[in-house]
């Protein structure tokens, strides 16, 4: 497994599937593992970009110290009325995306842990310091407030309170994962 290492400290696997790489913005110290799928080649909604500047607006923007694990998929959210048009996907700093997780959310805040095989459905918003447990399905347009522990799918979907010390724990976890690979 070979990685491309950029001057800003990003490590991108050569086996990662990335479309529209010129429209994906990664801040730094971010690791993208093999077979991760970053779908940046989408048509943005007219309201999101000025005329004739479609290519200048990034469709996926990822913050610092993020970690995208194997087979994780990132797709900008689709508009419910016009499925071929998409919004932008914004991911904050210190976000860890587990294996086989699928993200179609509108925005992810800072310090978020997304467990393996979790699914963040279309247009959902996750605020800062949240833990999404493995195999969770966050429904479309759902808003997850700060310091939440999210678990379950469908009728078992639950949002619980998370202790404030997770702010430091998640940050440290994201930093360590980027160093350890």
């Amino acid at each position, binding site marked *: 497994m070979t990685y491309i290492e950029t001057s800003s*400290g990003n*490590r991108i696997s050569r086996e990662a599937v990335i479309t529209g790489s010129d429209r994906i913005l990664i801040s730094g*110290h971010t690791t993208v593992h093999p077979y991760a799928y970053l779908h940046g080649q989408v048509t943005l909604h007219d309201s999101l970009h000025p005329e004739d500047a479609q290519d200048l607006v990034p469709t996926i923007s990822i913050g610092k110290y993020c970690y995208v694990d194997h087979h994780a998929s990132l797709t900008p959210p689709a508009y419910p009325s016009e499925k071929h048009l998409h919004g932008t996907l914004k991911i904050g700093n210190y976000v860890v995306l587990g294996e086989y997780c699928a993200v179609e959310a509108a925005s992810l805040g800072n310090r978020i*842990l997304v467990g393996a095989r979790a699914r963040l*459905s279309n247009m959902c918003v996750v*605020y*800062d*310091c949240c*833990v999404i447990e493995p195999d969770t399905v966050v*429904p*479309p*347009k*759902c*808003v*997850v*407030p*700060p*310091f*939440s522990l999210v678990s379950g799918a*469908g*009728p078992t*979907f639950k*949002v619980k*309170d998370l*202790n*404030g*010390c*997770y*702010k*430091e*724990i998640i940050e*440290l*976890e994201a*930093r*360590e994962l*980027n*160093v*350890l*690979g």
Partner: protein
Amino acid sequence: MDSDTKVFCPCFEPRESRHRTTQEPPTTMLEPPTTLTDPNCSFNTKDVYFCTNCQSIKCNRCSEPEIESKYCPSCMSIARAGCNSCPRNCFTCPLCRTNLTVTPGGPRSYTFQCEGCEYSYVQKTESERLTVPLLRVVKASTLLNNASYTRFTELCNQLEREGLEGTDALSAVSQTGQKLLNRLPPDLQLKSLSVAETKQADASPVLFDEEADLSVAVQFEGIKNQITPTSQIHLPGMVPISTRLRTKKSILCKLCRKIIIKPDKEPTIIKFLKSSYFHDIFPTIKVALPANTHSQTTNFSMNDALSEETQNCTFLISFINNCKLLTDVTISTNQKHVFQIKSPPEMLFMEATIPVPHFKLGAKPEKLNKPELIVKTIPTHYLTKNTKLARVEAINRVGSKHDEGTEKGINWVSLNLKVKISSIIEEADSQLKATVVESLKGIRLPIFVTVVNDRCDFGCWCLINVGKLIEEGSHA
């Protein structure tokens, strides 16, 4: 995010023995608290607080929450103090608790559509423009459309009407009762109450009247049709639920009433005005099997749980300082921990040996902004070979181990923890062995950890999950 170690809170301990659990233990022999093995008294280190005034651990039982602000988790707006649900148009699905999308469905109706399931609801309004919040309209229609509520009202009205008509209703009730008695078989009729027997002689025999019964049934059917709700969903409780508010809470110490945690009132701000979490003061304790020596070091076999008299296990225990202060750590354990299993009791003993009971943990770096610095805060056992930085660091640390396997980093220390497990049973059948093996999986070794730095001076019992490691080692 699962923790290997749990921390014991002595708040359930009887008063006379509580002082022993919070202060420094006696040097001769440790007496563990009586509730040490109670699972309700041990907590994850991330879920408890630390009171700097009392210098003790605070669990959810010995701390008190105080609501700072209430907000809607859907629209993130702050609500008034008296509210329990969002005063705006935020609703959740009664089936899957997902947020509902509210759209005007027509001139005098609103459609609630669930994004997570097929649930939908149409709310009709009296006027085209809403003069009251939609929440009130839904609540009012909930009462009107609630079948049980309407049925109760109808029955009350019926009783009132019959009461006005005089004693006809009461006589009808007594006649119906008599009819039911007559339907009973003869032997059961004889066993009826003595009061009924005395009255039977005076009462005239009433024959079964099918027409009267049918008329009553038709009457009830009519009432039933009248109370059927007109909305799409007929079951009670299937109307949209207004989103319940979430709270931002301060945490107070129940003993000294000092604030332990105080968050910012704004829902989207994650800043704390005051915070004293146990995790920030107490070092993180990680336990693992020594690398590359799974089967050699851990001689214990789960399948031969009682085949040898004494079995030895070695674990690597790492202490990582989360505090930005130099910290003195002292570890102690009781000489022989009796491990109780269901039957027969007290047949397994666990004895732990700590090679270095006292050491200093370096302060956590002020800013972990460089990868070269982050890698130095990770114990050698947890370094991987996936990145160049981790590989270089692992090579640099070769030969840094001191005597008895002790290793020290900038803010961490790793030790070899030797555990002896012995039994008093000489002969054990297969069923007993199975019981022991099953029980061994859940064993936790208690150690007393004392932490001293400029901010705190306290000690507490920790429970290390060695059972999980024994199981891992025996499979390796």
